[in-house]
């Protein structure tokens, strides 16, 4: 998909308007529901996608996550145990050098981090990584 700048602005306005009208729509009830909404319930393969997350995060407020799915149009990331499981969607444009990204996310306790890649042929890839979040020794 090749987006021109103008189409881009249009897309952005549309989505902004949708969020304003239906603010609750940004809150999927569960990660499973959010994934189903994204994939349309299609089956996912676990080959061709890599999710790198720490086995144990030293602090859940800042956890570095790396995801890669060569050839993907988009990669969407979920944190299954967060109040709102949606984390981010990466759309790779024509100038991207790889379909990979690293970011830092928040995790409310031990949970699965899930990445789904949308491929140009309409198929989906899925990777899951369980991350334990440390529990501090001090304080109430």
């Amino acid at each position: 998909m090749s987006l021109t700048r103008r189409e881009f602005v249009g897309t952005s306005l549309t989505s902004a308007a949708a969020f304003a009208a239906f603010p609750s729509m940004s809150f999927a009830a569960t990660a499973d529901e959010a994934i189903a909404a994204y994939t349309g319930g299609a089956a996912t393969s676990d080959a061709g996608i890599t999710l790198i997350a720490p086995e144990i995060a030293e602090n859940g407020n800042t956890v570095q996550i790396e995801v890669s799915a060569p050839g993907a149009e988009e990669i969407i990331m979920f944190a299954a145990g967060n109040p709102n499981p949606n984390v981010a969607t990466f759309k790779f444009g024509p100038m991207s050098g790889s379909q990979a990204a690293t970011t830092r996310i928040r995790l409310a306790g031990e949970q699965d981090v899930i990445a789904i890649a949308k491929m140009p042929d309409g198929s989906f890839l899925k990777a899951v990584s369980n991350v334990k979040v440390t529990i501090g020794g001090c304080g109430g």
Partner: protein
Amino acid sequence: MTRQVILATLLGVSASVAHAEVVSPAAVVANEYGEISTSLTGVAGNPVRGAEVMTSRSLGNCIACHQVTALEEFPFHGEVGPSLDGAGARWDEAAMRGIVVNAKAIFPDSVMPSFYKVDGFTRPGDAFTGKAAPDALDPLLTAQDIEDVVAYLLTLTD
């Protein structure tokens, strides 16, 4: 033991603890080794509840410092204190109660907090607020919490 306590014990109603004669922190009697032979409540400790006190951050949080294999379903056990595996075989009930109430009476330099003590602190605070403590401090655990923890620890025999 009062009649009410016997009744409560017979009925197995732990909620009746309030009726029991609870030994206040000031009234706790320890022997010269720091051991406390008399129950603080007269109500038998509940080891299941004791495990909850051991693992809850807002209660005893014992696993913050002690490793306990039997509690491995709760992640991240600390290593500041000794492992409690087999503690029930090493200490009898009086010694165990003495350690939980005031470990420093038995191990003078211990880092372990005294869980049933209300005075003699330097700059005591109001829980975790950083503000000055109120005039009357509650002990870190209630008398029954301590009996429950002791009951749990005595189950750790290997």
